[in-house]
């Protein structure tokens, strides 16, 4: 039902341009540009550019994320329509811990290429900034607990809708002036993926799960790993694992959780366990001194090497850590 609406929206907007003259095409393109006026570039990559823009109706800022997709006589590829429909369907739940998708525009650029623009709510503060400006000695324990609860609620919501974020980091966890956490930049990976493969984009490795670094499996546990890294960072106010390459990142991880055994090592990967020097697990409190006993237990459950043994977002919310205080 919703899928049909979006399909209609996209195809309808798209077909408005198709077969019409250049003036109509331009008029339509400007329609979107009239309501949302870009003010600065805030991200980019192989797939397209992200802009901070102002919604001229409300006066508020929005984030414009566009992706260029190839089109033929049938219009937009069905995969793109499906992904956009999924994002639109999420919108109906109005979840407090994910950013709102406010609008979707499709603009025909040439006969073979359409620009799909997703208009998201923009929050003028990310977790990175929030942590940086916390006065010494850092965030109070109760505030970390509250941020973590909200983060996990957002994540549990995405995961229950079969969305894997894949790139969770302090820069795309937004925090409003009222302390409300909102996850951003989710669900775009699959829309972008085919484009991203074409050009290497510089991405941070610090929050990557071991199975991603080893190019093994890819599922919801990868986000829990990132959440664990971020949980530790809330106490430390600096990243837990700051690797400079995939191998270096894995080395830094094993310095904390210990080198996995040969039995635990995934079988389908290029890099072998013997490439790493044997190292045993160290107490997590060596790296995150201020964490409580229950907090440390939750953190270790999030930083399990085996993705199948890693705690889920829903189970994490039931962890005794959240009963503390």
């Amino acid at each position: 039902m919703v899928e049909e609406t979006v399909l209609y929206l996209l195809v309808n907007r798209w077909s408005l341009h198709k077969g019409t003259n250049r003036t109509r095409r331009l008029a339509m393109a400007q329609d979107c540009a009239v309501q949302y006026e870009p003010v600065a570039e805030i991200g980019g990559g192989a797939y397209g550019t992200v802009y901070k823009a102002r919604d001229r109706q409300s006066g508020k800022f929005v984030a414009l994320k566009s992706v260029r997709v190839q089109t033929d006589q049938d219009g937009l590829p069905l995969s793109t329509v499906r992904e956009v429909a999924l994002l639109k369907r999420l919108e109906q739940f109005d979840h407090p811990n994910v950013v709102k998708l406010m609008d979707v525009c499709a603009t025909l650029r040439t006969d073979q290429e359409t620009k799909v623009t997703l208009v998201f709510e923009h929050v003028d503060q990310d977790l990175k900034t929030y942590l940086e400006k916390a006065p010494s000695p850092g965030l109070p324990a109760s505030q970390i607990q509250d941020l973590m609860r909200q983060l996990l609620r957002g994540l549990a919501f995405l995961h229950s809708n079969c969305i894997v974020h894949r790139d969770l980091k302090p820069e795309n966890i937004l925090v409003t002036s009222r302390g409300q956490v909102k996850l951003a930049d989710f669900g775009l990976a699959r829309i972008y993926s085919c484009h991203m493969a074409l050009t290497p984009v510089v991405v941070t490795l610090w929050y990557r799960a071991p199975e991603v670094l080893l190019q093994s499996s890819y599922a919801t546990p990868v986000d829990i790993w990132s959440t664990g890294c971020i949980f530790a960072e809330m106490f430390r106010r600096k990243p837990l694992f700051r690797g400079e390459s995939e191998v270096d990142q894995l080395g830094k991880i094993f310095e904390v959780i210990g080198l996995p055994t040969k039995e635990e090592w995934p079988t389908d990967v290029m890099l072998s366990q013997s490439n790493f020097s044997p190292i045993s697990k160290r107490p997590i409190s060596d790296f995150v001194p201020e964490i409580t006993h229950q907090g440390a237990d939750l953190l270790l459950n999030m930083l399990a090497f085996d993705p199948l043994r890693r705690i889920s977002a829903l189970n994490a919310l039931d962890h005794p850590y959240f009963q503390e205080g």
Partner: protein
Amino acid sequence: MIREDELASAAATGNAECVGILLRDGVDVNAVNYFGRTPLQVMMMGSTAVSQLLLERGANPNVPDRKTGTTPLHDAAREGFLDTVEMLIKFNADTNARDHRDCRPIDLARENGHRDVVAFLESFRLQQ
């Protein structure tokens, strides 16, 4: 990317380190980017580190958006970032500026339920 665009983008993403480097490199703090906006107009409102760097370098806090008349103080008040509101006022942001809807910053703070910002702007007015 030209340096004015870089500075604006660094400000908009809250990258204080990069903002600092570009300013030390001599990029004009009041130059507009490709979209005709100054770094202060597009900065990440929650980043007091960025607003402080820009304002101390002499960023003009009273440039209205050319389409909506919104000043940085309007934006900070609407989004409820009290620390940024205080910082802008310390550097002489006009608390009585009106946007194209004839709203002052305090009106936007009230409209969005940011009571702390409303209280601060009211007490500031009484001091004047």
